[in-house]
């Protein structure tokens, strides 16, 4: 088997999924992916596509787009607030897909991963969701409360359509489950870097590095790390070990920290500093 670094541009184009293509390109360039998370509909459904374009302009490689839910059990207060702002404007899963389709009119290459909870998907119907997500231009789906054991059928519906089911791994995941996740996951796996909710503040970089080494023994997909990364230093520290750095709560703090129409500019300006910090590490390594 050829190493991914040896792939030519044509090979990369041939990869079916935008996520795989993106990670292949980045790996060839020795760079770590930067994945911002924002909640669809926050600050408003009209601003979200502009926000996504701005984040891409600031160096985002993949976009995680949150589907608002009334009961976001795994999220800390910042993402809960984002979800509540979106829900107050009536944003549901259908609207999220409309936002993705709007984004795709101007960007056909940046992968979009939806992240949310099971119930809105089940309310739409899993198969209908997979169909509509595919045609809207979604590339991957993270359902926080679908562990692999409960997601076999759903994952199959996604894979049949070339969409990536993305699963979480945690500091408490035993190695036997890593192999199960490796079997079912596509695109990348998402390592939850701490025991807690999104946006918490007790990230232990050394522990993350040790876990990533363990995960890589069982999982060949790229590994993204998220939960608790909130500045250039933590992004750099994680980027040294991970294939992708995921940042959510800290960006949402930028979004909610001023007028809604300037949210894309604020979020992009902040993300650009993270991109620069990560690229500095990559340059030093090269």
């Amino acid at each position, binding site marked *: 088997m050829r190493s991914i670094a040896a792939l030519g541009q044509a090979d990369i184009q041939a990869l079916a999924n935008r996520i795989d293509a993106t990670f292949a390109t980045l790996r060839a360039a020795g760079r770590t992916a930067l994945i911002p998370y924002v909640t669809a509909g926050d600050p408003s459904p009209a601003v979200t596509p502009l926000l996504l374009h701005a984040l891409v302009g600031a160096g985002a490689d993949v976009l995680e787009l949150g589907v608002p839910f009334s009961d976001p059990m795994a999220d800390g207060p910042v993402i*809960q607030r984002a979800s509540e702002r979106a829900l107050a404007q009536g944003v*549901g899963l259908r609207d999220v897909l409309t936002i993705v389709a709007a984004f795709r009119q101007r960007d056909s290459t940046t992968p979009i991963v939806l992240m949310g909870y099971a*119930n809105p998907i089940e309310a739409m119907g899993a198969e209908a969701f997979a169909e509509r997500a595919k045609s809207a231009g979604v590339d991957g789906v993270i359902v926080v409360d679908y*562990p692999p054991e409960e997601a076999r059928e759903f994952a199959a519906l996604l894979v049949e359509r070339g969409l990536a089911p993305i699963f979480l791994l945690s500091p*408490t995941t035993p190695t036997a489950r890593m192999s199960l996740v490796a079997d079912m996951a596509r695109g990348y796996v998402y390592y*939850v870097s701490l*025991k807690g909710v999104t946006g918490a503040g007790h990230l232990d970089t050394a522990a993350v590095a040790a876990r990533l080494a363990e995960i890589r023994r069982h999982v060949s997909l790229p590994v993204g790390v998220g939960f608790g990364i909130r500045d250039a230093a933590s992004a750099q520290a994680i980027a040294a070990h991970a294939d992708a750095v995921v940042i959510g709560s800290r960006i949402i703090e930028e979004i909610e920290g001023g007028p809604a129409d300037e949210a894309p500019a604020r979020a992009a300006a902040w993300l650009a500093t993270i991109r620069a910090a990560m690229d500095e590490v990559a340059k030093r390594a090269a």
Partner: protein
Amino acid sequence: MQMADVPYALPDERGHFGPYGGVFVAETLIHALDELREQYARYRADPEFVAEFEYELKHYVGRPSPVYHASRWSERLGGAQLYFKREDLNHTGAHKINNCIGQALLARRMGKRRIIAETGAGQHGVAAATVAARFGMQCVVYMGSEDVSRQAQNVFRMKLLGAELVPVESGSKTLKDALNEAMRDWVTHVEDTFYIIGTVAGPHPYPMMVRDFQTVIGRECLTQMPEMIGRQPDAIIACVGGGSNAIGIFHPYIPYDRVRLIGVEAAGDGIATGRHAASLTAGRPGVLHGNRTYLLQDANGQITETHSVSAGLDYPGVGPEHAWLKDTGRAEYVTVTDDEALAAFHDCCRIEGIIPALESCHALAHAARLAVTLPRDKVLLVNLSGRGDKDMNTVAERAGLHFYCRPACDPSRR
């Protein structure tokens, strides 16, 4: 008594009751739930654990709770005989303590010194705070800030018992949000913390474990009813919010297929108004709080706010085993409005000298409604799941200044 042909042995290994139940949680909790499942499987079969549980139920809770023939009320109704399973006589005033004792004993064996709980009306919070004091554990109770102001007396009780009370300001600020917050606490402190869920919902093994601890209610009835009337009852009636008191009395009777099992949900202002908490009657299956079950939700799959005069029934989901019992037809589910429950409250106070919890009044109201349609030799066993001391404010507010008067002294009725 006839037993059903097919033995009932649910849930399966992964916590499924047919399509319901399961483990729908973030990855961080999977390991904690696996550990809980293994430890519970070990101790439920351990005679020492079982003996300690039974000792606490007898000497601390005051079990067995009696079965009482509500003869005056039955006489007035002129139909079937009403019998009450007196869970209201338990220590702390409701069935909730049965489960809290069981989980606290398990927590202690698992070496967890900190327990957390969610509460709506405050009954489960009080029971959790009580067992934490009893076993010398730290206790944190999450309660929606709306409920904190509605249930001031229970808030004070929890504090007296040494628990830390955390008001939850997110979402609708009620029970479901308290549950979300307790889950967030658990995921953050998963190593030293035991989450005592108060009802037969949540991820596996909770619906099974809480049920097992509550089936003491039905098992006692299985021996008490033949002692009192020479046979088993014709129907068992219990209120259903999350459904723990109902499953506790239903479950041992599932094989007795001549015994009707009737769950009563809260219709609030009426099902047609949309202001209710009747998830089995008016909800659709979905995923919330770690399990698949019937949920009150909008077209987008957002969980909707619920309403009931009884805070303990004010929950948009229901235990997955009830979902399964409904679909299979083994249990029937009906509804009772706030007004009907309150009428039953007053009847029970005046006719039987028992002040029942508003939750239990839903079961009483349906029992009274059903009794008049049946002959006098039929027997309806109602789970009187709690006492109404906690509901004094609510009832007083609903009835104005005259709640303690008989209708005869109510000026508006003269």
